[in-house]
């Protein structure tokens, strides 16, 4: 006869509510683990997905994700000439916060080097990759706009042609993918008045120097758009992504590039380390600590619940001892209840979490390894928390039932 099951059946609603409470706590533990894992995945997502062998960034920076990096776009051409390089393409990344349908639209803009990179590697859930050089965007579903929506950014309106899932930045913002030129246009969008003022300022500066005074045509040229002036550099990009030819040793290319004093080079693995050790490290450690605290709190609460359940049964335990029940019968009653409480709580945490986690503003990634380790932890805290109840039960004297 299983006393634990019969006791639970007798107090089903109370036991279920207790399991529900434990389940909520375990769901938090599971969620913390998921957010922690999500943070790591978000941090390395772009680096993993984009699949470049080398990341070339501004000299002495750790860009483009860990810090700002600005390099000239023509670096692409220089890199293509390096032996072992199969392709090189510019890449732009930055965060913007605009307004869309009267709600803030905060997104990580990713500029892809059209037409080499149309974003065909993106995890699309609907629509397609970029199909035109301008005015198209692929947005992550977390951002809000739906397929076919028109999103005004800068002076242009972009059509959402594709929707991705799970493409978030380390800050938890959804990503939006544009062609490189469109991303630069959004980044360096300057109002007409500012352009006019800049052109006037440029003309005044030229007019003050001798060369401007003697060359009237120079004054006229100073007022032309920046793109028409060879003396003014085109907007910089964040990085250049290098794909190596098959069989090329990345170290040999890095050795070659180490002689270039205007850039820094990182392998994919180094880029991931930069993100994990730099960008998300504190958040990761904080979440880890919070998770550990939640596990301890769950264990304490479970122990107190089981202790209280045991206290309520002191009289019955005394009676069991009086009629000669072995310790294993009493120990089994408490331990089985602890395990059932842990199991029910875990199942509850799993299913409710599965339903609730997608609603979280940040990505929650619950991996099989995490589930397994949590199951082991739940087993551990169930057994540990039963110890207090068992200790109490073992101290109950059979003559307590007589008095």
């Amino acid at each position: 006869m299983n006393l634990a099951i019969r006791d639970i059946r007798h107090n089903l609603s109370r036991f279920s509510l207790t399991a529900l409470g434990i389940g909520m706590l375990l769901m938090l533990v599971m969620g913390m683990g998921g957010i922690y894992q999500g943070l790591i995945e978000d941090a390395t997502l772009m680096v993993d997905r984009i699949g470049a062998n080398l990341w070339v960034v501004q000299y002495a920076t750790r860009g483009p994700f860990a810090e700002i990096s600005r390099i000239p776009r023509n670096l692409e051409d220089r890199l293509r000439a390096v032996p072992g390089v199969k392709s090189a393409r510019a890449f732009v990344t930055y965060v913007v916060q605009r307004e869309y349908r009267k709600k803030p639209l905060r997104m990580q803009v990713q500029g892809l080097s059209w037409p080499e990179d149309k974003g065909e590697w993106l995890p699309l859930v609907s629509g397609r990759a970029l199909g035109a050089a301008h005015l198209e965007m692929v947005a992550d579903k977390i951002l809000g706009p739906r397929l076919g929506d028109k999103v005004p950014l800068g002076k242009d309106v972009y059509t959402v042609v594709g929707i991705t899932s799970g493409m978030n930045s380390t800050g938890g913002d959804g990503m939006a993918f544009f062609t490189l030129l469109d991303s630069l246009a959004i980044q360096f969008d300057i109002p007409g008045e500012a352009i006019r003022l800049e052109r006037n300022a440029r003309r005044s500066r030229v007019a003050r120097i001798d060369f401007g005074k003697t060359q009237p045509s120079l004054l006229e040229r100073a007022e032309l758009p920046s793109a028409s002036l060879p003396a003014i550099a085109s907007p910089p990009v964040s990085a250049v992504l290098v794909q190596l030819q098959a069989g090329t040793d990345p170290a040999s290319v890095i050795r070659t590039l180490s002689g270039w004093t205007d850039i820094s080079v990182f392998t994919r693995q180094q880029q991931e380390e930069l993100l994990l050790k730099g960008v998300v490290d504190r958040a990761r450690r904080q979440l880890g600590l919070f998770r550990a605290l939640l596990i301890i709190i769950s264990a304490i609460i479970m122990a107190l619940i089981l202790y209280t359940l045991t206290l309520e049964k002191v009289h019955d335990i005394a009676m069991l001892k009086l009629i000669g029940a072995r310790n294993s019968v009493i120990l089994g009653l408490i331990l089985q209840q602890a395990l059932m409480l842990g199991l029910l709580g875990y199942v509850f945490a799993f299913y409710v979490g599965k339903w609730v986690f997608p609603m979280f503003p940040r990505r929650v990634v619950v991996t099989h390894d995490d589930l397994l380790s949590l199951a082991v932890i739940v087993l551990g805290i169930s057994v540990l928390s039963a110890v207090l109840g068992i200790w109490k039960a073992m101290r109950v004297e059979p003559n307590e039932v007589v008095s």
Partner: protein
Amino acid sequence: MTQPSRAIEAEGLTRVYGSGHVEVVAMRDVSFSLSEGEVVALLGPSGAGKSTLLTIIGLINTLTSGKITIGNDLVMDGPEAKVNLRSYRRRFIGYVLQKANLIPFLTGLENVQLALEINDVSGRPARLRAMELLEYLGVGNRANNLPHMLSGGEQQRVAVARALANKPRLVLADEPTAALDSARGRQVMELFRTLAHEQGTTVLVATHDHRALDVFDRILEMEDGTLRSNHKNGPKEIDP
């Protein structure tokens, strides 16, 4: 005519709590013996030591000095247990207390069955034996009810069934009728007598209830922790 064999022998039972200035003598030099199939009343005012005697005979309290022999087994010699007390209780002693003390989450049948399972009788034999006892005690029709659905008398009869489940040598009852009306109280006492005489079980009942004393074969009277009298029911006669 064959002499009934000795079920229990108590020699010089003494129980002292505390020590030095705070020493309390709960029981002093109590000796008696009970025969198989005997129904014995243990009388005495509150604080006389009845419960102490019952818990000591029932092997749930320790002795300061004295000896207890059950059947041919010396089970306690002073504070030292000579047998595994819990195992001994499980196999040879049944308890009926003032309150039925049934396990609240088990049905009447399961409460009796549990006592059998604890003694390694399980499955169908346990169920049949439990049902047989409940029917014998007139509560077979309430076998599947939880304790809170039973009246006080019914609960007490289930408790008696549980005490008898493992065919004990000795049944100890502490104020078993205190929570019952006089008719049901008498019913329980008569039940003890029938069981003792039919099954050869020795029954020792601590009671305040003088209305049903006629059912007992012998009466032990305690006062201030000592055995004041030990006589067969009827004309007083001191047992040597």
